[in-house]
């Protein structure tokens, strides 16, 4: 006798339960079931919570929790092929883009790549001091033979962050213009941001082959796109309503208003979002090494898997250096945007 037998009897469902027992014939048994098989002589203080598994013991017609996870899995597998037909061609360019970027970053000789990177840092920050720091950090990584790994990581971040901005800014603009869209998008963004990064990888592994770069590309983009969307939306909504009113009073069209007023005034916020997005891409690219993303993350993974302490720590240091470089350069660019637009606050 199980604890909740009485309930099913009282509800007059005994017949339904027994019919299932005879038809289904028990099914597989878990270890817990086996252990519990002995006696059901529980005292009052040991009354189990009426969970699916407990109820199943009283009535075989009740599903078990295992059926739930199995159902999710089967459901996903059922739509997988259809999903693949749609998603595969749609995301194929991402693979090509990533492959191309990885190739380009590695094929170019270091004495070309490094000066180009320094130049980019200078254009973004207009600060020679910062360029000096970038030179020392990258020089150090190259000196300890981590140059290729670092370039792979940078290539992936470059592609993913670029796509995040290209997709995220328009989404953020659309959200800022429609309260309904904002309301429905925010829970999705919250979920994307709080879902542990490893969990993204599970359905993606089923959908795409692990050898395809788009697998980790999608994971990184999903994870990193959130801040740029959020801050674009926020930035545009924060634009001084007086200025918007003035734009209306002078007869600006919606387009003139968007590109002439809202986006320029939201730029400091959008740039803060871009900075966050880049930092999150970097965080994710390390985790994505689990699904064959090349770069410094691979070394970290090797350090964990083979217990190679030194390899893992040095690669970790390399990631920190890259993070500091990316953060400083984008923050310097942000500061310049702030200084030039310098919203009046008085």
């Amino acid at each position, binding site marked *: 006798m199980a604890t909740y037998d009485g309930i099913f009897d009282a509800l007059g469902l005994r017949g339904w339960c027994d019919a299932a027992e005879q038809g289904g014939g028990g099914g597989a048994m878990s270890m817990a079931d086996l252990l519990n098989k002995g006696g059901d002589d529980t005292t009052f203080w040991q009354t189990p919570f009426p969970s699916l598994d407990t109820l199943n013991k009283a009535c075989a017609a009740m599903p078990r929790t295992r059926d739930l996870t199995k159902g999710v899995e089967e459901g996903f597998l059922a739509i997988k092929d259809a999903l693949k037909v749609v998603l595969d061609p749609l995301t194929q360019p991402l693979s090509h883009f990533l492959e191309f970027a990885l190739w380009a970053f590695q094929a170019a000789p270091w004495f070309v790549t490094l000066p180009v990177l320094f130049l980019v840092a200078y254009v973004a920050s207009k600060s020679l001091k910062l360029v000096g720091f970038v030179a020392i950090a990258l020089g150090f990584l190259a000196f300890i033979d981590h140059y290729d790994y670092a370039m792979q990581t940078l290539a992936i971040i470059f592609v993913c962050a670029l796509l995040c901005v290209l997709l995220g800014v328009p989404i953020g603009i659309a959200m800022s213009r429609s309260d309904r869209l904002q309301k429905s998008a925010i829970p999705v963004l919250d979920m994307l941001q709080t879902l542990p990064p490893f969990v993204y990888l599970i359905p993606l592994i089923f959908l795409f082959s692990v050898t395809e770069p788009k697998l980790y590309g999608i994971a990184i983009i999903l994870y990193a796109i959130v801040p740029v969307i959020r801050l674009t939306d926020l930035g545009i909504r924060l634009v001084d309503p*007086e*200025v918007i009113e003035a734009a209306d009073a*002078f007869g600006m069209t919606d387009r003139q208003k968007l590109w002439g007023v809202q986006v320029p005034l939201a730029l400091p916020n959008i740039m803060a979002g871009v900075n966050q997005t880049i930092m999150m891409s970097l965080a994710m690219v390390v985790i994505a090494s689990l699904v064959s993303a090349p770069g410094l993350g691979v070394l970290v993974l090797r350090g964990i898997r083979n217990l190679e302490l030194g390899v893992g720590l040095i690669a970790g240091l390399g990631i920190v250096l890259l993070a500091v470089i990316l953060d400083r350069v984008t923050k310097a660019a942000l500061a310049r945007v702030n200084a030039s637009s310098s919203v*009046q606050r008085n």
Partner: protein
Amino acid sequence: MSDRPIKIRVRDLYKIFGADPQAALEKVLKEGVGKEELLNEHGHVLGLRRIDVDMRAGEITVIMGLSGSGKSTLIRHLNRLIEPTAGAVEVDGEDVLAYGEARLRKLRRERMSMVFQKFALLPHRTVLDNAGTALAVRGIGRGEYEAEAEKWLDRVGLGGYGGRYPHQLSGGMQQRVGIARALTANSDIMLMDEAFSALDPLIRTDMQDLLLDLQTELHKTIVFITHDLDEALKLADHLVILKDGAIVQQGEPQEILLHPNDPYIVDFISDINRARVLRVRSIMTEGDPHGVETTDEIDHEANLESALSLSEGDTARTFRVTRDGEPVGVLKMRDVVRALVPTEASDEGVRAQAS
């Protein structure tokens, strides 16, 4: 003065804020529900109530009222930044409320420009580009609007500041840019929403003088919003006093000053320096000064303060009043003194309620 053509005509304008303004309007019109009751029992705010104003071409119409009286709401109806609940707004005889999006945009771009209390300049654009906003919005290239913007910046005293950014300028200078921006639009109508309220008193006086100066030259139709009576009296050709969303009195400012028809207005005017605001023409005796013994002459637009100083305190004197050098009437100092007797703050007015 009132023979000028009517430029903007506002008729029976109502504005109610809330979830269902039309239903609330029914209550106001049919059941005569008041502002308080409408807010407390129906959750709607009565923004404007039966506004009738004629704004004449080339005049400065000043709309005055305390905060919450609906003056900013009213001015935003003229270019439809706010849509009315009921009523009509006509500009040059055309019903603005019937305009579609394209015509409304054309109205805002070419026929009306606006100056804002907090300047509302575009912080990421230079002063020159800000001044040229109206032209840039019309699709005119920078090269072409530059000269025009430059000209008006010069006119408001900001020549040479074109390359700066708004945040590099002081408040007064920023509002000069705001005025230059409105002038560059070259529109007949200028809407000024508390344009000088955010400025220091001295700078404010400067700006008022600048505006009057510009007006003698340009003869625009200006709608000016203010909560400051001195400013209103200084600028207004036609003064409209709003209270709780309704017009209490409107007319020639001197007329309102001498014959206030509401305790609310009496309260308003009890504090001002009448000698500085009242003008000779308002209290002179019209007619031929020949035969009357006069000691001196005074211009009809002069204020009573200058009459007082001219008389050196002697109330027995009489002056000839002239307009453009032609005698038009007689000013007796006794009348001057009588006109200066202050109207007491009324017992039933705002202040009595406050104390």
